[in-house]
């Protein structure tokens, strides 16, 4: 890494820290004023940095399994993303706190947002009792605070082990050219991806779906994971566009890398629309009282505006923009599409998890802005730190990139 690159990364990191700390101050103030709102805003904001970190793990494994220049070009970014997973444990602590503790039941349990729980009604015995017909004691145990936190620990541990095991072998291969280490990265990635997909599905059920513990959908985990992949690709595109003129990125962050990443992002946008719409269509046409209320809540009381916004800005607009090859290759325009998609990722997650907390209709609190700013800022700060802590390139990687650029790309 030369001085210019270091200076740029330092500058970006400082900015991220500044933004993140400003957001954090807001969060602290918010917590003292309105702790319920703090947790609700924190919850949805948490999922996007989580998506960056775990999406990096998923994308790395997919790339090891299928190959492709896109993963080689974005490899260091994904690797630094994997290195932030332990940091996500730290950011998870407030959620663990919310799972384990209950505020004074002063607000009363009206079946909506303000029960004696912070975020997860399923952790509340009174809620379980009131819904006993569909809420078995076993399910109550499954959604109880300690069990939820225990599972979370298990998920994080499995992601950290998988991620760092891959990183260890990738590093060994970069340094020594040991073919066995290279083989190991792929060997881990097969079962690793499988295991990641399963654990992430259950994490999505636990952390996001269970804000409405009576609702269920087998598609939920898939939609969630696709969203993570989308966030990661969008983030990688934006980040690369900021450093594309610097050593060593300038050697490979060329229009075709942006085109490849944008093509993947395009496919992921479609996958997101496909899975989200399928879930909607199936639930809408069956119109069962167990499932339909989830959408009724999200398509009324002001939330319909967000639903339509998602349709237009999370799908239609990026779809038509990314359909054009000229835009996909345009390293100065495609980051804007990526930025739009990251914003829409927040909106989507907000639309998924926040409505049950606002039974009287959509009302956006200032903490809903402070929380994503804080968590994303602080995550980016940590991410750049991890990126700087390791070589941005290695002779072996340069060789690979050269081969990919010279031989196979057009």
């Amino acid at each position: 890494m030369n001085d210019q690159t270091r200076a740029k990364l330092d500058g970006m990191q400082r900015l991220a820290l500044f933004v993140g700390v400003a957001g954090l101050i807001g969060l602290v103030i918010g917590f003292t004023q309105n702790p319920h709102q703090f947790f609700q805003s924190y919850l949805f904001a948490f999922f996007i940095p989580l998506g960056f970190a775990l999406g990096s793990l998923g994308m790395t494994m997919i790339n090891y399994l299928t190959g492709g220049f896109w993963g080689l070009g974005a490899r260091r970014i994904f690797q630094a993303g994997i290195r932030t997973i332990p940091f996500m444990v730290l950011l998870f602590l407030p959620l663990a706190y919310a799972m384990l503790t209950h505020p004074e039941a002063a607000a009363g349990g009206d079946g909506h947002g303000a029960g004696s729980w912070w975020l997860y009604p399923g952790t509340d015995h009174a809620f379980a009792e009131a819904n006993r017909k569909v809420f078995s004691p076993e399910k109550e145990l499954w959604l109880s605070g300690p069990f939820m936190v225990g599972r979370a620990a298990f998920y994080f541990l499995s992601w950290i082990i998988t991620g760092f095991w891959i990183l260890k072998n990738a590093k060994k291969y970069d340094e020594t050219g040991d073919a066995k280490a290279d083989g190991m990265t792929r060997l881990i990635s097969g079962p690793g991806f499988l295991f990641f997909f399963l654990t992430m599905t259950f994490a999505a059920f636990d952390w996001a779906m269970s804000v409405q513990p009576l609702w269920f959908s087998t598609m939920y985990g898939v939609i969630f994971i696709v969203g993570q992949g989308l966030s990661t690709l969008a983030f990688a595109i934006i980040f690369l566009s900021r450093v594309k003129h610097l050593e060593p990125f300038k050697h490979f962050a060329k229009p075709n890398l942006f085109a490849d990443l944008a093509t993947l992002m395009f496919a992921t946008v479609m996958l997101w629309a496909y899975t989200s719409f399928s879930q909607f269509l199936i639930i809408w046409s069956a119109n069962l009282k167990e499932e339909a209320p989830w959408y009724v809540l999200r398509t009324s009381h002001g939330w319909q505006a967000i639903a339509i916004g998602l349709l237009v800005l999370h799908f239609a607009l990026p779809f038509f923009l990314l359909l054009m090859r000229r835009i996909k290759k345009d390293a100065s325009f495609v980051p804007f599409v990526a930025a739009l998609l990251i914003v829409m990722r927040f909106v989507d997650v907000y639309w998924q998890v926040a409505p049950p907390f606002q039974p009287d209709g959509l009302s956006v609190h200032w903490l809903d802005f402070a929380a994503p700013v804080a968590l994303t800022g602080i995550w980016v700060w940590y991410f750049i730190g991890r990126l700087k802590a390791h070589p941005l390139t290695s002779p072996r990687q340069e060789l690979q990139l050269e081969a990919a650029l010279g031989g196979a790309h057009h």
Partner: protein
Amino acid sequence: MSEKALHDDHSELIGPGHTLGTITDKISEIALIEPKKTPIGWLAVTGIASLGVLMLGVTVVNLVFTGIGIWGNNVPVGWAFDIINFVWWIGIGHAGTLISAVLMLLRQEWRTSINRFAEAMTIFAVMCAGMFPLLHTGRPWLAFWLMPYPNTMGMWPQFRSPLIWDVFAVSTYATVSMLFWYMGMIPDLATFRDHAKNKISKVVYGLLAMGWRGAARHWDRYETASLLLAGLSTPLVLSVHSVVSFDFAAGLVPGWHTTVFPPYFVAGAIFAGFAMVLTLALPIRAFYGLKDFITDKHLDNMAKVLLATGLIVTYGYALELFIAWYSGSPYEAYMITNRMSGPYNHLYWSLILCNCTIPQLFWIKRFRTNVWMLFFVSMSVNIGMWLERFVIIVQSLHRDFLPSSWGMYSPTIWDWGMYIGTIGFFLFMFMHFIRLLPMIAIFEVKLLVPRSGVTGKSGGPSHGKKPGSHGPDAHTAGAGSH
């Protein structure tokens, strides 16, 4: 990615020692051989398949004259073999488009030697699939009522019904697949025309080749058209089986109504499709000595796809179980219990064995290249995916909303006759395809040659260019030997 993979010269995708000329000769001689020299093996298999076609004919005639009462369908099991086999065949029909469109867009070069017959397989499978719902209407001569057109009866199809979406999805799929398949064959048909020895072949292949001369302009248009068709086909891979899954998921029947159905059906379709590609490719490869074109690398990759899609299907099964418990719905819970311990439970456990357990053998590399093992696993998947549809359809229906109308289903001889008949029809069509048409894309395989270090007569100007890069010059060179 390893350096080896990056510098891959595709020598794993084509056997050693081939020149552009030998490829043309090897592939075209299978179809251009004199009628009298048709191999006995081909005649034997086609003969057996013809018996299946006869059986299909007899069954259909009886069905149309007598009515669908000859089937075992009843109340509450109103959908049975007809829909099971429809879904089964449609699923098999998925590998073709996936291989030709999606893998083309993903620039996976290993698709080249298997895409053509996977596409053919797709088309024949869709034909078989289409017969079932058409005949299930009982009055197939009125099938055009499924199309929305202004009519004197003032009658329109129910646009909210996924069954109608199926009509559009499947017919679009059949049309685009057919176009893709035929268009892809044009350059090779021209090769056949030029290599054909007798007059009739020359004329027929000449007509089919539509005046193809291999000019740069032809290749340019060909490339544009294939990219467009690939782009069109890609969403179709997802849409057809998603719509098929809506047939079930949009309803209320426990066991049908679950949100993960669309992607899980698509994965299941690819799973079944690749299994059938392997089932067909292995004997053909052995019989015609095509090991140089369908190499161990191809088999290995197909096995990996089977393993991956098998795991997605298993994920679907696992989620169904978990959510049935998590939902707290007694009906969902009963459906699962009934699956595992009800009257059809042996079928459920067999499907788990066939679809989830046996494919795990492919974690081991040695099994992915062992033809017997591949054949065993692919047959097991063919069976398993059929059982899956049986379990989803029949098992879910036979215990429906009114316990007083619970019943059992068992197929009649006519159900079996039609099912086996379509297998015969499928084989019959497929055997004719390999006998008469280029079953491996000659010009696409040729593109692998220059990079495998073997120089053909017309040289290898596509050096440094990816075979999938579709430059017109590369194709002209590849086609230069005819």
